[in-house]
């Protein structure tokens, strides 16, 4: 499997804006897309139930609602994103231990620098992190 995250500029901007808005707490969310398509289309920012600068967790009721909605739409979480607000955009041990969507692109944004953000994408499968290129598609 050659992996690359292809994602629209608008969605990148939405993720970064969400991360900036919630800084210094971590922001998190999903971009859903049609099952089997690997195309992130529907931006779904989630509340960080932990409201923490070093931890994020989808609220359990919101999580259930999200998965039911995706199921009803034949969608999957193509991208699962969160921010690191004081460290680099690289999956932590905690991130790896929780990662349980082998088909998802795990996007990390770092907002530690107030001017420049880092935006990187990974596969996390059975505890193994593989970084992948991000191909930003400009709006037509």
């Amino acid at each position, binding site marked *: 499997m050659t992996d690359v995250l292809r994602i629209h500029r608008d969605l990148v901007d939405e993720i970064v804006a969400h991360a900036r808005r919630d800084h210094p707490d971590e922001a998190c969310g999903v971009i859903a897309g049609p099952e089997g398509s690997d195309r992130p289309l529907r931006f779904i920012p989630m509340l960080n139930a932990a409201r923490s600068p070093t931890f994020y967790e*989808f609220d359990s009721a919101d999580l259930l609602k999200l998965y039911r909605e995706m199921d009803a739409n034949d969608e999957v979480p193509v991208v699962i994103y969160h921010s690191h607000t004081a460290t680099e955009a690289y999956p*932590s041990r*905690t991130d790896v231990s929780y990662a349980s969507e082998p088909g998802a692109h795990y996007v990390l944004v770092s907002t530690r620098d107030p001017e420049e953000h880092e935006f990187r994408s990974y596969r996390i499968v059975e505890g193994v992190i593989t970084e992948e290129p991000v191909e930003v598609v400009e709006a037509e």
Partner: protein
Amino acid sequence: MAVTVSIPTILRTHTGGEKSVEAAGKTVLEVIDDVESRHSGLKARLVKEEKLHRFVNVYVNDEDVRFAGGLDAEVKDGDTVTILPAVAGGAR
């Protein structure tokens, strides 16, 4: 007594790819044990030291069982038990 158990993608290797399976039981633990009897390996992914694993959320209908008795949460005929991996992490 039949309960529908909804299985998340990552655990479908244990159910031959099935998205949901039927099971019997009066509590979440009994339901998990019943599923385990036909789909071995599932229980170890959900239960650790007789408690629900922190990486996983289990719901009876709309209720997260963590707030309703955990593995002892009551299950009734016709209920749906949904298993979802927690989505969490962070720099910590």
